[in-house]
């Protein structure tokens, strides 16, 4: 059996390796997505005071720290038995929208647009954001604007761009929003709306060109899991868990997020440090489910904002029974979520309650356990802590958004590999497609120890005895 290893995958956050197994006839048998980097955050936290958790765990990731912060702080709110002031919740949500916008913009414009616009067969040395700026300056500009718009929301609320671990705190948030800062963000929203709308129009027009990718990039039935609001609308901060089946039927609804272990199983495989969550009632691996933008749009009745809902109706025409299966369409779903988030930011800022100054409730540790769940840009994120009677962490469990999709990665990569991999040689176009399907999920693997575009790409070819017979290394993609 031959083994092809793509290592590490470039332009995704963190370290990863793809291994493709060939059978005796050089046909693709199976593909695996491996995470070889173990960071041991769970161990690291033991013995620390619970209120340090938001700041510690928001360092799990440099791309979506706010999502970790929220899941963590919600677990802490429970340990402290505190109900936070209404405006504290509004401000937390507002910051999270900033996070979603900036993260989705990064994924779509900076990481994936080079594939989408320059083409999968474009020279890998030049298939990056810089070439994009050169060839499609308008699009690159929009990406930069939207990303900054999201980042500035975070920055203006907390005073820091990346780690806001001190602003979001158990019991609420540290400081209220000032009128000037509110007006500054509000001033940019019309432009942000325009930019995301133009991008959506263009993407829709281009979809025809990607028919192959839509068909073969992780296009398969799974379950879909995520939070929905009380009314079944799109929800990123609170709400209840809903699980929808491959045909669009709601198989479980109104599930208490804090009881995730009753319906989410966590399998482990010896070849990866990443866990394999599955829908318990269907078993492993049949209970494979997906999370993130695609899943969220599959489980909700509507988004809940006018422009996003109009887009959602059109988007759903691409699926069966309103269920969109193709992993490639995560990109599309991400754009709709950006639109939704900008609409929400505007709506929230126009409500004067956002300026309320009561944003903190005081409390100490009083319960022994807390579970915080939020919808990170990449999907459902769970933080679960247990503390001793003084509030010292004795046990933690995190299910990272990216992990939820773990089973689906392998299915998606196998599907792409079967179509594009020719076992006899390493061809760049197919490698690019394997990478591109992973990027469609927008995984965030360990944390931002590496930024996009600066990782060397190495490809190894093994023969049936496990001997390396070929190797391809591209030093430092620019």
């Amino acid at each position, binding site marked *: 059996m031959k083994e092809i290893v793509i290592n590490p995958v470039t332009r995704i956050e963190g370290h990863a390796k793809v291994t493709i197994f060939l059978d005796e006839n050089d046909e693709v048998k199976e593909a695996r997505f491996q995470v070889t980097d173990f960071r041991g955050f769970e161990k690291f936290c033991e*013995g620390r005071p619970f209120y*340090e958790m938001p*700041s510690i765990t928001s*360092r799990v990731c440099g791309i979506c720290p706010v999502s970790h912060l929220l899941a963590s702080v919600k677990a802490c709110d429970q340990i402290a038995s505190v109900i936070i002031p209404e405006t504290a919740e509004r401000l937390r949500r507002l910051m999270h929208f900033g996070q979603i916008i900036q993260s989705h913009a990064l994924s779509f414009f900076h990481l994936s647009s080079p594939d989408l616009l320059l083409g999968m067969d474009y020279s890998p040395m030049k298939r990056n954001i810089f070439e994009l700026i050169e060839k499609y300056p308008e699009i690159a500009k929009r990406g930069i604007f939207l990303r900054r718009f999201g980042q500035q929301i975070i920055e203006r609320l907390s005073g820091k761009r990346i780690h806001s671990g001190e602003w979001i705190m158990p019991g609420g948030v540290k400081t209220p929003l000032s009128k000037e800062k509110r007006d500054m963000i509000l001033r940019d929203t019309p432009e942000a709306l325009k930019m995301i709308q133009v991008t959506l129009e263009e993407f829709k027009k281009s979809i025809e060109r990607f028919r192959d990718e839509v068909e073969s990039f992780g296009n398969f039935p799974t379950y879909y899991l995520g939070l929905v609001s009380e009314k079944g609308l799109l929800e990123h901060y609170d709400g209840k868990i809903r699980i929808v089946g491959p045909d669009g039927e709601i198989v479980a609804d109104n599930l208490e997020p804090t009881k995730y272990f009753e319906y989410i199983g966590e399998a482990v495989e010896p070849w990866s440090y990443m866990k394999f969550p599955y829908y318990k009632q269907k078993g492993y691996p049949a209970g494979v489910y997906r999370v993130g933008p695609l899943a969220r749009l599959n489980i909700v009745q509507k988004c809940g904002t006018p422009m996003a809902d109009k887009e959602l109706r059109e988007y759903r025409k691409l699926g069966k029974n309103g269920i969109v299966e193709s992993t490639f369409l995560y990109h599309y779903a991400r754009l709709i979520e950006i639109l939704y988030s900008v609409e929400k930011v505007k709506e929230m800022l126009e409500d004067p309650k956002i300026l309320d100054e009561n944003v903190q409730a005081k409390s*100490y540790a009083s319960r022994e356990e807390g579970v915080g769940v939020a919808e990170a840009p990449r999907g459902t994120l769970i933080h679960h802590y247990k503390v001793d009677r003084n509030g*010292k962490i004795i046990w933690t469990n995190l299910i990272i958004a990216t992990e939820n999709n773990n089973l689906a990665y392998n299915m998606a990569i196998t599907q792409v590999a079967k179509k594009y991999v020719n076992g006899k040689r390493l061809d760049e176009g197919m490698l690019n497609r394997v990478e591109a399907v992973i990027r469609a999920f927008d995984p965030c693997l360990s944390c931002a120890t590496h930024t996009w575009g600066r990782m060397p790409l190495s490809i190894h070819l093994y023969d049936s005895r496990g001997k390396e017979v070929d190797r391809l290394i591209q030093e430092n993609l620019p």
Partner: protein
Amino acid sequence: MSERIVKLIIDGKEIFAKPTDTILKAAIDNGIQIPTLCYLEGLTPHGGCRLCVVEVKGNPKLMTSCTTPVSNNMEIITNSPKLIKYRKQIIELLLAERIHTCSVCIANGSCELQELASKFGVDHTNVSRNWERFELDMSHERFVLDHNRCILCTRCIRVCDEIEGVHTLDIKRRGKDSMIIVDLDEPWSASYSCTSCGKCSAVCPVGAIYVKGKPLSETKRKELPKFITERRRR
């Protein structure tokens, strides 16, 4: 006359001081800044951190300015490449001895050690770091004692003893194994002597003793010992 006033030179500047003054006091009174860490106005000088070392002409050893009294015709240098080198090393060693990961520390942004490190441009340590972990004492209703951040400056011990007057805190063992203890090495919640006054948390330069549920910026009060001693009748 010469009994009551001494003349000395600090950094080339001629100054006058009382014979009971320390070099540090004489310097401060004349607008000369010397970096300090364990020293805190209002508490007995401890001379432990050695950040305040100065060169004294004719003396091959570096002297801690917070504990060394002035004397007539002393010539002192408070800032030289050699002194800067030593100060940097001291900061590095302090950072390496316990777990000082500022980014996840409760004191981030209001820590005197962090401030010194950034002032002296210490952004890494050349010695390998000690990652030994110590158990926190979170048993007190209001305060936390986190040995993992303690730099053993003894400010807390001195303020508790000299200002609050109960001497709840002390130190056990020696050298790098030294640890702050409560009463006879008991959990803080079991302390009979502690009055829960919070002075220790007000003066701790790092995030080792702090008030639960409050940002450090709100609870740090470095000037407290000075403020109290000045109001006491001598």
